[in-house]
């Protein structure tokens, strides 16, 4: 009798934990989607990916350790699914021609504008479309890191865990990826002018 009631209490407690987990996960959906949108190739793909991620998360909620970073846990599932869906495995990205230095985008934009002095105004020469398309032109391995750190606001450590790569690799890809992004932005501005 006592055993039956303690079983019932255990089941009820587990159901409460699961509901809480699901609610916390759903509250993060906007942020998860925002990252997925740039990891995946298209809006549709991002939507599918987020749905698959949540389906898997709800099934395997017991493997989440309460008190750890749930958003990072969800993104880890999502990046693994993204790779499973035919994204090539993470490997050393091909080295392309060396990007110009770190100041060159500013130099280009400020020069085209006849020496504007307000840095915020210089940035505004780039449209939202310029940014989204430049980002999608950055090779996957670099883009994943930029999206997690610069857009998703994950620490280097979290990004390393999500992508299962060493933290030094996160840093070098981030550094290089930001330069590639700036090169793409500079090119999109050049095209707008034409």
């Amino acid at each position, binding site marked *: 009798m006592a055993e039956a009631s303690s079983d019932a209490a255990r089941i009820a407690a587990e*159901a409460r934990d*699961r*509901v809480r987990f*699901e609610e916390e996960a*759903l509250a993060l*959906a*906007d942020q998860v*989607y*925002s990252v997925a*949108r*740039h990891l995946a190739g298209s*809006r549709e793909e991002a*939507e599918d990916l*987020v*749905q698959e991620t*949540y*389906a898997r998360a*709800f*099934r395997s909620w017991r493997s989440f350790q309460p008190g750890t970073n749930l958003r990072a846990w969800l993104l880890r599932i999502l990046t693994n699914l993204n790779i499973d869906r035919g994204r090539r495995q993470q490997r050393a990205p091909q080295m392309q021609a060396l990007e110009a*230095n*770190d*100041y060159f*985008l*500013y130099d280009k934009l*400020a020069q085209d504008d006849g020496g504007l*002095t307000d*840095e*915020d105004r*210089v*940035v*505004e020469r*780039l449209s*939202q479309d310029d*940014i*989204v398309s430049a*980002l999608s032109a950055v090779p996957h391995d670099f883009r994943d890191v930029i*999206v997690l750190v*610069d*857009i998703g*606001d994950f620490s280097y450590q979290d990004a390393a865990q999500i992508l299962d790569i060493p933290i030094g690799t996160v*840093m070098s890809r*981030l*550094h290089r990826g*930001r330069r590639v*992004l*700036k090169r793409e932005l500079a090119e999109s501005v050049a095209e707008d002018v034409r």
Partner: protein
Amino acid sequence: MTEPHDDPCAHCEEMMQPYLDHMLSDDEMREAEMHLDECEWCRRRYRFEESLRRYVRQAANQPMPAGLKVKLAALRIPLE
């Protein structure tokens, strides 16, 4: 101690990313700040980089399509 550099602006440029990521050592941080205090040319470029990062974050932040949240909620496992 950090060594003096032949081209302080080129060195400042190398420090920009780790500076904005708060990854410089205290000595390097001081060095970058001393240079930025006296060099408007580099200061502008640092400010631009900060604005750019903010701007990329805003531009890249896209709202979730209407209906997706409902679809996600429907994936919850019903209580028995």
